[in-house]
């Protein structure tokens, strides 16, 4: 198959995946009991007759296929609809939340990558540090991000008073970074150790290549290919961690928007937020695949 054909095939698969996610979310939302009018009614004292009227006004009285068609055709034209709860354009709400989520995710990823790579390298050079890498790896697997976040607020805001408890990204980014760092450091350390024993490394050493150059130019690029297959998991964890941290630290990102929309059965907002998050995860996976192809000739 030609290169153009392969790229076209990949693109088509991703579009179909996105479409599948959209339909699945649409259906799942409506399977969950209750709609936006039920939420409004539960908050106040409107009568059953008023509920019916509100459903008609919000377009919730027509069948699922009709709702899906209306939403889908508008979405294709770039109109993500209007929030059932706030009466605001959904695209405005998503665009306002997106920078917060992207910023937190980028900061967490940067901290995680720096921490993971640094620890793995240090542990290769100083085998005594392997225990620290193991500990961080176990931490990233067993510690629930939510509990770590609560502990972070308690320590840094309530006890020490160094940071505000809400509305900042410092502790959340560090917690996400610790998680990612722990996931990366262990496999990277193992691969670095293995690569360090390889014959081409012995040959490079015998040719007098200095340790710094050996590590940065030869060992690390070789071993990074061992971490790349984990990228999908890391991205998924990153999305989950970011959304959790937003809710815990009161950051007005997509996670907070999504939680409020799910609890309020604000269908257009949930659909738009998940569409954006899915597109981001798909894009990240495509980028990872491209990097893997660039770095590892065996995958080409």
């Amino acid at each position, binding site marked *: 198959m030609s290169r153009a054909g392969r790229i076209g095939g990949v693109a088509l698969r991703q579009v179909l995946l996105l479409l599948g996610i959209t339909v699945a979310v649409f259906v799942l939302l409506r399977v*969950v009991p209750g709609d936006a009018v039920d939420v409004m009614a539960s908050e106040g004292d409107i009568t059953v007759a008023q509920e019916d009227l509100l459903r008609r006004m919000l377009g919730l009285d027509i069948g699922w296929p009709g709702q899906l068609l209306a939403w889908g055709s508008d979405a294709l034209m770039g109109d993500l609809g209007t929030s059932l709860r706030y009466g605001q354009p959904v695209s405005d709400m998503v665009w306002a939340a997106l920078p917060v989520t992207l910023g937190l995710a980028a900061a967490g990823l940067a901290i995680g990558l720096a921490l993971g790579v640094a620890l793995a390298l240090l542990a290769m050079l100083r085998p005594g540090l392997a225990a620290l890498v193991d500990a961080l790896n176990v931490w990233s697997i067993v510690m629930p991000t939510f509990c770590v976040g609560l502990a972070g607020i308690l320590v840094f805001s309530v006890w020490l008073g160094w940071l505000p408890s*809400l509305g900042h990204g410092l502790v959340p980014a560090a917690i996400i970074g610790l998680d990612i760092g722990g996931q990366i450091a262990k496999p990277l350390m193992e691969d670095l150790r293995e690569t360090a024993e390889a014959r081409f490394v012995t040959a490079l050493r015998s040719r007098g290549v200095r340790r710094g150059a050996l590590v940065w130019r030869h060992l690390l690029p070789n071993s990074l290919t061992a971490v790349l297959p984990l990228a999908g998991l890391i991205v998924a964890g990153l999305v989950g961690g970011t959304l959790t941290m937003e809710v815990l630290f009161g950051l007005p990102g997509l996670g907070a928007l999504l939680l409020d929309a799910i609890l309020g059965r604000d269908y257009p907002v949930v659909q738009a937020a998940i569409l954006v998050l899915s597109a981001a995860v798909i894009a990240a996976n495509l980028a990872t695949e491209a990097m893997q192809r660039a770095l590892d000739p065996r995958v080409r």
Partner: protein
Amino acid sequence: MRRIARRSLAAHRLTRLACLIAGLATLPALAPAFAQQEPQRGGTLRIAQGSLRTADPHRHTGDSPVQQVYAEALTSISHDGSVKPMLAERVEVSPDGLAYTFHLRRGVRFHNGREMTSADVVANVERVRDRVQGGWLTTAMRGLRAVEAPDPHTVRFVLAEPFAPFTNLLSELWILAPETEGWATTINRPIGTGPFRFAEYRPNIRFVGEANRDYWQAGLPRLDAVEFDIRQVADRSLALRAGDIHVARIPDDAVETVRRDPNLRVTFYGDTEWCAVSFNNRSPRGPFADLRVRRAIAHAFDKEAFMQTVGNYVVGNQMAAPGSYHWDEAMERADPYRQPDLARTRALLAEAGVVPARTPLRIVSWQNDYSLFTAQTMRGLGFNVEHIALDDIGMQTRLTRYDWDLTPVCSGPRADIYLRFVRLMSEGPRPQMWGGIQDARLDQLISQAVTTVDDAARRRRYLEAWQHVMDSHQVLVLGHRRSPIGVRAEVRDFQPGFTVSPHRVDGGVAYTWLAR
């Protein structure tokens, strides 16, 4: 003509006494941290209490307390639940209860500087009644035969039939300047008369109100601004303890931690939530239509233990909180279910021919401790229990199937006792929470009560309606709980409302100041 203020005073004497005693009891403990000082001006109060779903006060469906700092109404509900005039100076009610004449305060100005007149009030009433479909009070306004402005400072309402909670409900009909942009559709920047102007609103994030220096109550507000934190956050008590928020609604399990902190205190809304177990009244299944079985189940509940799982409680058997005007002491003393009586339960089940082990019992509930307690109590009797625990809306929607037998619920503060009773009526809101009662006799009793003009006679009729509910075993009340609010020590003269209202004519955030 009778004066509303005088009537309310008499109506809530008992509650005030209870509040006074409770307040006096807590004074010695609070003395060091909350010593009295002269009120200071300035500062921003950060408050996390309540929500704001829409900036348009006429469009909300019942839960938008934040708007009360920028929009005011003709009346206001005090902490003790009594109705007081707010934008009106005084109110006169005709002896037949059909005509309400409001004499407006002079010199009340909207945030754009224009003086409020009776024509503005009429325009707001008409907007709520005729233009805002599906909004809060839309139904209540249908009972309005006419609203007139005989002069610039008088508004006269004429009702089709007497409606006792009318002045009470008007406390939530907010008066805005009709020249506000979006009047014909949806208002995004409301122009009200409140102590704080509408400054910034980011849905689900925050609302900022800046002090209205031309406020009609001289010397108020004392603060420069109020900032409502309306984010979805897991636990507000941490932000309160860290000093990032001054006032916050806190979880029940955080009350003891907050109380131990010398920089904080705990206070409560004036009204309570009433907690009950509802039977399926719309289409009862199997033996649960049998009065003997309902009585058996009622005898099985340990009210004290149930309410302990709810927290901040008092045990009771009525919809009205103990000590309040519509509560009856004799009825409370006569409660046959005050203590659990399992022997009686077993005897009644045997008499009805019910073998619990062979009887399926389905409970639909929220996910909380008192629901687990209910399920465990029924399992203890030997019933074959199926417990379906769902999230808030999931549970309320599931209840509409009426294929269940029991549901434990707690229902929040309401500005008038009618707003509790109306839920038990055939056409009332959210009927599934109370088992979908459709009882013509009960409808009649509640309708008679709400149209009774005389306070004492109306109270008797409400009690008669409640006695009917108890005798029919439609709903079993277990007690009342109070919702806790955490307040930082530097916050002075802050007292929560009867309901979630943060502002009222005689208290709330306009009076609050920050000690420095």
